[in-house]
């Protein structure tokens, strides 16, 4: 048993933390959030050069990591700094799906992703699918020598920046079937593809995606026809580890900001953190933070095991609850200052809470845990 990071991961963590501390200040980050692109190309390139993206892929795909703990280390640091750049979408989801399913030709895109030269987006969720992974109503129909896509995709993160969208569509089966779902590489400039972009509350941008008779060659299909669900579930599992770790990192920052505030701000001549009620509540946050850290370790450590889904459901349920507590209590213990947009905690709290809306919220994961435990 060993809970220490390997030397390589420790180095990655240190490098990443230093880079972000210098470059990703509150002021810079708030400017990035308000920019038209919604993220910084400089930061993206800088982090790619540091190897952040490479750490998310295995050696057989040109990276030097790709395991659960690699994902956890990277995203914990991204979370600590409140990074809004779309590593989840381009690398874990987009790049991960191509790495898992792509032909040799398609795999070339992974190399581009690792180098920082290509953005991707995973266009999967639909207006009424909520968190149900197998609910795909977008259709893919064979026509002439190609395929025609029709449908609508909801809240597709990073869609506007993506060179290609990885679009899920149904080739057979009923609306909720796992079988019959395929993935397609749709170039940003494809005819019939329309994006309606908007900023997201916790930073970054997304788009509503309409596919209106989008015609593709069959070579645009990623993997075997109708057989993409397994790969989707696997990459979404990795995304859940990433989201859990990112939330953990943000929770660390929230508690650190709160500690600093409690020890700096004075009332009646004493730091308010020395008052018992706040001190005890702060202790509870620290306890939940350690629980969240253990949950991330469990999820990351089981990413390639048979118990994967149950461990991930467990971790995301715990982090959903602990995250809400940390976000709300940190704001409450700060008081008014935490309500202002320019204060670091405001953005950090939004990252924590809004992560609960990607790939299943606290309740969704609780139900999944119950179902998987009963199985």
């Amino acid at each position, binding site marked *: 048993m060993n809970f220490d990071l390997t030397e390589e991961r420790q180095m990655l963590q240190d490098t990443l933390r230093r880079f972000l501390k210098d470059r990703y200040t509150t002021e810079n980050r708030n400017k990035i959030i308000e920019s038209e692109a919604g993220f910084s190309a400089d930061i993206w390139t800088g982090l790619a050069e540091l190897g952040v993206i490479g750490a998310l892929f295995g050696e057989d795909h040109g990276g030097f990591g790709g395991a659960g703990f690699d994902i956890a280390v990277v995203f914990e640091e991204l979370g600590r700094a409140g990074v809004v750049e779309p590593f989840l979408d381009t690398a874990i989801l987009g790049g991960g799906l191509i790495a898992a399913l792509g032909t040799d030709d398609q795999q070339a895109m992974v190399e581009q992703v690792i180098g920082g030269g290509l953005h991707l987006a995973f266009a999967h*969720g639909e*207006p*009424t699918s*909520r*968190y*149900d992974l197998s609910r795909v109503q977008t259709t893919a129909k064979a026509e002439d020598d190609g395929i025609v896509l029709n449908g609508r995709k*909801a*809240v597709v993160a990073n869609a506007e920046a993506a060179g290609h969208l990885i679009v899920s569509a149904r080739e057979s089966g009923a609306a*909720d079937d796992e079988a019959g779902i395929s993935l397609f590489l749709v170039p940003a400039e494809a005819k019939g593809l329309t994006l*309606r972009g*908007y*900023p*997201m*509350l*916790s930073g970054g941008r*997304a788009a*509503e995606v309409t596919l209106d008779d989008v015609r593709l060659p069959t070579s645009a299909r990623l993997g075997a026809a109708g057989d993409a669900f397994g790969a989707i579930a696997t990459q979404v599992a990795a995304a859940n580890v990433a989201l859990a770790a990112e939330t953990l990192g943000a929770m660390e920052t929230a508690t650190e900001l709160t500690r600093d505030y409690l020890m700096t701000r004075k*009332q009646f001549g004493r730091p308010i953190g020395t008052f018992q*009620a*706040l001190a005890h509540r702060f202790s509870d946050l620290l306890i939940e933070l350690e629980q969240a850290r253990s949950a991330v370790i469990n999820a990351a450590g089981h990413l390639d095991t048979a118990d994967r889904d149950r461990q991930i459901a467990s971790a995301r349920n715990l982090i959903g609850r602990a995250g*809400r507590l940390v976000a*709300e209590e940190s*704001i*409450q213990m700060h*008081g*008014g200052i*935490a*309500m*202002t*947009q*320019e*204060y670091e905690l*405001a*953005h950090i*709290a*939004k990252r924590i*809470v*809004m992560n*609960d*809306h*990607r790939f299943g*919220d*606290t*309740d*969704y994961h*609780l*139900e999944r845990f119950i179902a998987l435990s009963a199985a």
Partner: protein
Amino acid sequence: MDLSYSPEDIAFRDEVRAFLAEKLPKDTAEKIRNGEELGKEGQERWHALLNEKGWLAPNWPKEFGGAEWNAVQRHIFEEECAFANAPRIVPFGLSMLAPVLQKFGSKAQCDHYLPRILDGTDWWCQGYSEPGAGSDLASLKTRAVREGDHYIVNGQKTWTTLGQYADWIFCLVRTDPDAKQQEGISFLLIDMATPGVEVRPIILLDGTHEVNEVWFTDVKVPVENLVGEENKGWTYAKYLLTHERTNIAGVGASAAGLDAVKRMARAEMSGGKPLMQNPQFAARIAQVEIDLMAMSTTNLRIISKAAVGQAPGVEASMLKVKGTIIRQEINDLARRAAGPYAMPFASEMVEGDNDPIGPDYAGPVAAQYFNYRKLSIFGGSNEIQRGIIAKVKMGG
């Protein structure tokens, strides 16, 4: 024991309902229902409609043009307004300053200011909080120095709600720097157009501009703008704070919010069924509804005491704490209910008229969730309220 309204109360409720059905502008109600901001003009339009009916100042004595309702009537009015998605009355002039003027102000001040509050000539804001003072008003630093017929005011106020719309601000200022903590404070009315007054926006974490910093640099204020006696401002401030505390439980707003959550949960599908039938979500809704049913009765119990002249006292603190917990829980449920469509940042939707991105109910819920964290912070944080409750109840 009688849980039902008297026939008079019911007649009054019906009158309120009829008025709202007839007079509340449809577009106003629609905006409130969707959590959109109303803006200055929208508020003023509603104030004017109420004033026309004589209902703009429920708690003012009739001699000043008020409705002079009792606490139960005020409760009925507030509850009906919440259900009809009517805007809440902006309280600064009507519910906060006016009672102070009526009790401590000069006849000249009453004659001048009160009609202008009613007819919308003056929009007032509040200058209480200061940076670093938190909920502790007694440590305030803004100075007013008497020079001839004027005070010269220097200092800074913060968390000034809707100060960007205001014509006037009522302020607590320190007039005797040598006096102890709560003494040496005066209550001053300041024209926002005076040179040296500067309003700087504070953007809240959900992107909204509700509150402001107000800076005073050598601002000349005529001495006749002093309310009551110099250095007695703390007395007036405390009086004001008790008047601020009407509708503190927010039962009507919570009930309307819970209804909205249920509508969302009936529309959202989860695992092939309406979210409303999801056992976890149904349990969350039921739990908060049960809490709200009890809170509604707690509120009525306290109000019915107030109606016969018994002061609410520490109960107001209890209503504040539990009321905000319930409202914030409802906001959390709304956020959850919206699912992935809670993520778009619909600030332009909130203020403008663009098409919604997802279902129309989803647009503002996450922003509201964050915005309403303020409920347990501003106006005396829940920690302050718990301290008051413990002090009063353990002393007994």
